């Protein structure tokens, strides 16, 4: 179905990797979309290959990830944009353009996304030959102008929210164009706290990188650790002992529990329901205590490591975990009842920010946001890792795709998570929880997806046979979900913006990694 110059590698970087020429990428994707209606984009990874720049298009299909691999010349890195066929590719292309200097032809809006406007023009930080010495003086020397100032054109009023806005918890900016109370256009801008973790990871050893990637996001730290660690284990061919897998699963689900409870409480605060916030965050405390008991840390667990976990679960922990999970399930039924019967919650969240299943696939959104629109994707089911293959649990979906369903999906998932932990504790295998692995990783590359609380988290790790990775690519769930906010806020009331936005569970610490 493709032109001549292609190579297909099965079960490599997802289900298959197709290597082809840069000019046939767009045709290939068009053909794939014709075959598979559920095709979306997961990420675009750039790699510096000395003479050329490699581009990996990780496509999300019904069967799993398919990677299209191509190369563009370093001195003339031009490739045609696929944003017109998959709107979700917009941000991925802009990021690659920022960090590698790839020019995407016919992209609707190829502006800076993660780098500051004052960043020097021909300096692409993730290229190996980038000279980053004295970067602070170079940045300041260049003056820049933005066209996004508060202004009024006709009926449209330009409202800028952020990057410093007391109502936002993290620095990000949204330029809203408003006609009266109705939002007409949204332009998000991220990158205010971009820390260059991907670059930093290339300068540290694999073991140090585990600690580095955990610090990308405080809330879903274990998910970042497992995604990185699993990638390295794939390259090494390590088989993690069963007990290690189960303990990992328990820690990951604790992570999900505390993240979802945090979000639901925060949503309560955004819609002015303080009592709900206080109740939910109080019920979150035992989860934090359990995390501390099992890993020694309350927030950043630092428990998952290459080859297993760092701490075993002790016999006397098990009844405590089971007791808390039973209690949590009881509480969740109470909250579900509350969400279903409380009129003021429904008034604020029902029919707010509706995202249809079709749009969700087009925009390639992930996690609870996609599931609330009726798209049944969950990496734990589609591409099982750790012990999820052996543990039975229900995939929660809802049909309406509004803010209310997005919150309800999370409530149902909390119950499922508690059941997963309960099952994992009951069926905890005996044996070692960790094996020793070599410090130097063989040449290879691997792609891992995990289901973080906010959706699929994707890691691509390439090793060059030394103690340091050649390239670490992180695609966080919020990065994929921001386009959904862009879509759903348009046409809605400006007073609905907070309730809509919070239901996506945005995390800018993740996004600006």
């Amino acid at each position: 179905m493709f032109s001549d110059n292609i190579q297909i590698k099965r079960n490599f970087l997802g289900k298959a990797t197709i290597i082809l020429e840069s000019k046939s990428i767009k045709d290939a994707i068009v053909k794939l979309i014709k075959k598979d209606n559920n095709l979306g984009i997961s990420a675009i990874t750039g790699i510096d290959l000395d003479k050329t720049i490699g581009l990996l298009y990780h496509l999300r299909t019904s069967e799993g990830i398919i990677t299209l691999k191509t190369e563009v010349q370093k001195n003339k890195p031009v490739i045609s944009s696929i944003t017109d066929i998959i709107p979700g590719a917009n941000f991925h292309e802009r990021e690659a353009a920022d960090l590698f200097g790839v020019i995407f032809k016919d992209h609707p809006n190829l502006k800076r996304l993660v780098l500051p406007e004052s960043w020097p023009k021909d300096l692409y930080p993730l290229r190996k030959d980038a000279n980053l010495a004295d970067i602070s003086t170079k940045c300041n020397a260049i003056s820049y102008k933005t066209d996004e100032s508060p202004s009024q054109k006709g009926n449209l009023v330009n409202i800028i929210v952020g990057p410093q806005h007391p109502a936002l918890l993290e620095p990000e900016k949204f330029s809203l164009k408003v006609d009266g109370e109705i939002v007409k256009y949204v332009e998000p801008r991220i990158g205010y706290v971009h820390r260059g973790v991907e670059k930093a990871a290339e300068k540290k050893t694999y073991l140090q990188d585990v600690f580095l990637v955990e610090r990308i996001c405080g809330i879903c730290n274990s998910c970042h650790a497992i995604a990185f660690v699993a990638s390295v284990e794939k390259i090494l061919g390590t088989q993690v002992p069963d007990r290690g897998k189960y303990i990992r699963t328990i820690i990951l689900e604790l992570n999900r529990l505390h993240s979802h409870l945090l979000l639901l409480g925060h949503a309560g605060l955004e819609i002015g329901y303080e009592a709900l916030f206080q109740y939910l965050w109080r019920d979150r405390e035992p989860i934090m205590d359990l995390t501390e008991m099992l890993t020694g840390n309350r927030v950043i667990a630092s428990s998952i490591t290459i080859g297993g976990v760092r701490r075993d679960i002790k016999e006397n922990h098990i009844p405590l975990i089971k007791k808390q999970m039973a209690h949590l399930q009881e509480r969740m039924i109470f909250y579900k009842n509350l969400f279903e019967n409380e009129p003021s919650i429904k008034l604020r969240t029902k029919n707010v920010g509706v995202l249809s299943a079709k749009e969700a696939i087009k925009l390639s959104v992930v996690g609870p946001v996609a599931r609330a629109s009726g798209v049944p994707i969950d990496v734990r089911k589609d591409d099982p890792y750790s012990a999820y293959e052996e543990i039975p649990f229900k995939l929660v979906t809802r049909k309406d795709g509004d803010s209310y369903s997005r919150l309800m999906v999370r409530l149902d998932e909390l119950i499922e998570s508690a059941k997963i932990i309960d099952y994992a504790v009951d069926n905890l295998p005996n044996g070692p929880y960790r094996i020793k692995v070599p410090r130097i990783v063989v040449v290879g590359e691997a792609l891992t997806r995990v289901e973080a609380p906010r959706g699929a988290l994707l890691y691509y790790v390439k090793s060059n046979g030394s103690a340091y990775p050649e390239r670490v690519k992180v695609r966080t769930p919020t990065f994929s979900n921001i386009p959904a906010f862009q879509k759903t806020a348009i046409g809605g009331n400006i007073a609905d913006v907070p309730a809509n936005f919070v239901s996506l569970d945005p995390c800018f610490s993740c996004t600006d990694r």
Partner: protein
Amino acid sequence: MITFDLIFRILVFPGFTFIFFFTLFVDWLERKIEARMQNRVGPSLAGPSGILQPLADVIKLITKEDIIPGAAKKIVFKFAPILAFSLIVFGMCFFPIDGTNIIPNSAFSGDLIFDLALLTIVNFLMFLSGWASASPYGSIGAARVLVLFLGYDIPLFLLALSPAFLAQSLSISEIAISQNFPFVFLAPWAFILFLIAMQAELEKDPFDIPDAESELVGGLETEYCGGRLAFLHLTRDVQVIFGAALVVELFLGGPYGPVFFGFPAFWYTLWFIIKLIAVIVLSEYLTTLFARLRIDQVLKGNWKILLPLSILSLILTVALNTWIYPWVM
């Protein structure tokens, strides 16, 4: 005739000092109730069970630096909060707290309307103070105050007329004294609607739209600090007492109740405080129970539901008072 007794009544009891400390007490009570309902502890460090916390807050704010934004309308920004506070305390003078008004014989026919007008003016001054601060958050919060109180003033006035009809008087003290049988039993519909309208008038949840933290930071108070912020807070707190006192006077028989021994003034004050606290608890309960509504939802509810209902309630009260109650009692 200015006597020592009069000055004592105005300055100490049941005048300014009493109202000031009672306000702080009610503020503490509100915080405690809200905390308990939200599964928290609430203020606990200053004084026994944190009872001195509101006083500590006021003292802290007064000692802080006073900053006036350069773009603010200076005179309005400076004096609106103080004027609002003075007016709302002045409004309290028309409530019989210990049996008579704070200034004896100051009651006149129509002081109910005067008091409600004062409440409106205070709301308007709050709007002005936010408007004058020249900050987008302040102005939006202020505009919301205006929209909200335009909506809720009419139902509130209409509902306050029900007890006036039952008592055949427009004087608060006469309405209070004529309630041998509290009006809450004669016109419970008006009582419930009045509580809801009062909740909106005092900008409490689910109607605290003017200071929605998630959208407007601090609402109209955003640019205020120091002593002026303390006055804004105090105005809010006295407004709460004012609203609750209005409910007590109009529907719950005012300060009057059984006198067992000794001074009637003591018993009347006690009854007043007990009834007022009951109203506060009820209002706090409503506050904690609901999420904040959106401003268009509130306005829709107000013009489409509350206004027709309050007119109906007035018609019902007048009809019953004319044809049914004379036969029953």
